């Protein structure tokens, strides 16, 4: 069963067609890689799904319900979390406070939930430790390195326990040895029922992690299927991977 259905989605910016009649089906429980050259429309697709920008045409359904036209907060509340290519964190909150923002949004901040709040803090610390950034829990977000911000954002998005997570270049600026652990963690979350749509240029990471790939070029889907088939596809080699 499809968790997310994107149907004939289109978006223009002035004279530039960023997304062109694009359809995607994200089955529940999958890890789908969305790949393609720089400027092929991958991040625009993310921005459309999460309501950050309005679509020109097409429809999007999450758990069979149309989410087209809803704002980012509503879509987030329905269970779609995301990360950004350039990590968006709160620079004047500590790393730990950043982790607790998604939980507070979910209504756990009240006095009645104090016991639960303590539990969430423990969970947040465990997640920070896992990402190798436990030692910076009390540092301000703005003082973290680029890679640490990426890791913090990824950790924070999981705190809200979304059903579908869109990851925009999770490997960008992250140490390769840690990436393998992140891939393992994504697999574990996936085994626990979280579905992922991942934009990434690191082909080792994508091939290792994703169950299926969708290839975009100039806003259109040009190929899709099992990672090994996509990698050998001459159209993909020409448009994206190179010889």
């Amino acid at each position, binding site marked *: 069963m499809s968790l997310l259905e994107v149907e004939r989605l289109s978006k223009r910016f002035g004279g530039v067609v960023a997304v062109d009649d694009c359809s995607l089906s994200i089955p529940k429980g999958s890890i789908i890689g969305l790949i393609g050259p720089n400027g092929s429309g991958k991040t625009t697709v993310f921005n459309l799904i999460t309501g950050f920008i309005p679509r020109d045409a097409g429809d999007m359904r999450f758990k069979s319900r149309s989410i087209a036209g809803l704002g980012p907060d509503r879509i987030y509340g329905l269970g779609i979390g995301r990360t950004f290519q350039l990590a968006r964190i709160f620079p004047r909150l500590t790393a730990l406070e950043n982790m607790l923002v998604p939980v507070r949004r979910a209504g756990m901040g009240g006095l009645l939930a104090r016991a639960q709040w303590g539990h969430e803090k423990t969970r947040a610390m465990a997640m920070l430790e896992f990402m190798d950034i436990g030692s910076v829990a009390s540092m301000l977000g703005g003082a973290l390195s680029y890679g640490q911000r990426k890791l913090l954002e990824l950790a924070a998005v999981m705190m809200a326990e979304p059903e579908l997570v869109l990851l925009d*270049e999770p490997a960008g600026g992250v140490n*390769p040895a*840690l990436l393998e652990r992140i891939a393992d963690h994504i697999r574990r979350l996936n085994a626990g029922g979280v579905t992922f749509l991942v934009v990434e240029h690191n082909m080792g990471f994508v091939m290792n992690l994703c169950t299926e790939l969708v290839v975009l070029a100039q806003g259109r889907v040009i190929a899709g299927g099992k990672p090994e088939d996509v990698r050998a596809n001459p159209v993909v080699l020409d448009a994206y991977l190179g010889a």
Partner: protein
Amino acid sequence: MLELEGVTAGYGGGDILRGLDLTVEEGAVTCIVGPNGAGKSTILRVISGLLRPRLGSVRLRGASIAGLSPRTILGRGVVQVPQERSLFPTMTVWENVRMGAYTVRDRRLVERRMEAVCQTFPLVAERRHERAASLSGGQQKIIEFARALMLDPALVILDEPSMGLDPKTRATVFDTIRAMNLAGRTVLLVEQNARSGLRLATHGVVLESGRVRLEGTGTAVLNNPEIGRLYLGATA
């Protein structure tokens, strides 16, 4: 060319670099790899004068540059291409590249440098009238390289040049770095795409917790099994 000795530096919440010693040889491509938060970008900030070291010395061709302003260090021939995109998006490609010589008063010298840069990077002339924002990520990175060369620098510092680039473009960017080095530029590179960075490098440095854990030729670092397991991963 560049020597850091006993450098200790941080941002107020504690030291990131802890007595770091690092040498960059003239004509080399030196690549620094290491875990997130090890201090890679902090080294670059210290060299460029964006962060003053608390202890230690930084010498460029024998002269101390620690504590000098970024502008003065730039004038000594050290340019940095930052991690995130840094072109002026509404200015044309040509205007962006010219901005690299903002501190140069001699107009004829600027023109000569523009010609030289266009020879190295044909993209500059091809797209000269276009706004920087209309270029793809990889093209923007190449224009940033071109802008950096306008000062005819002694040392070019690149902070994660391949980040966010697709595989084809990434290969072009690495080829461009190799070509810059073959043309005589000394390059200091920080790269999380560690295997590709070390393959390109004549000298590899593994940084851990603000100190050099291991160094050697790029190939030696790449082939060190322990370093491979701890820092390079199997899939990158």
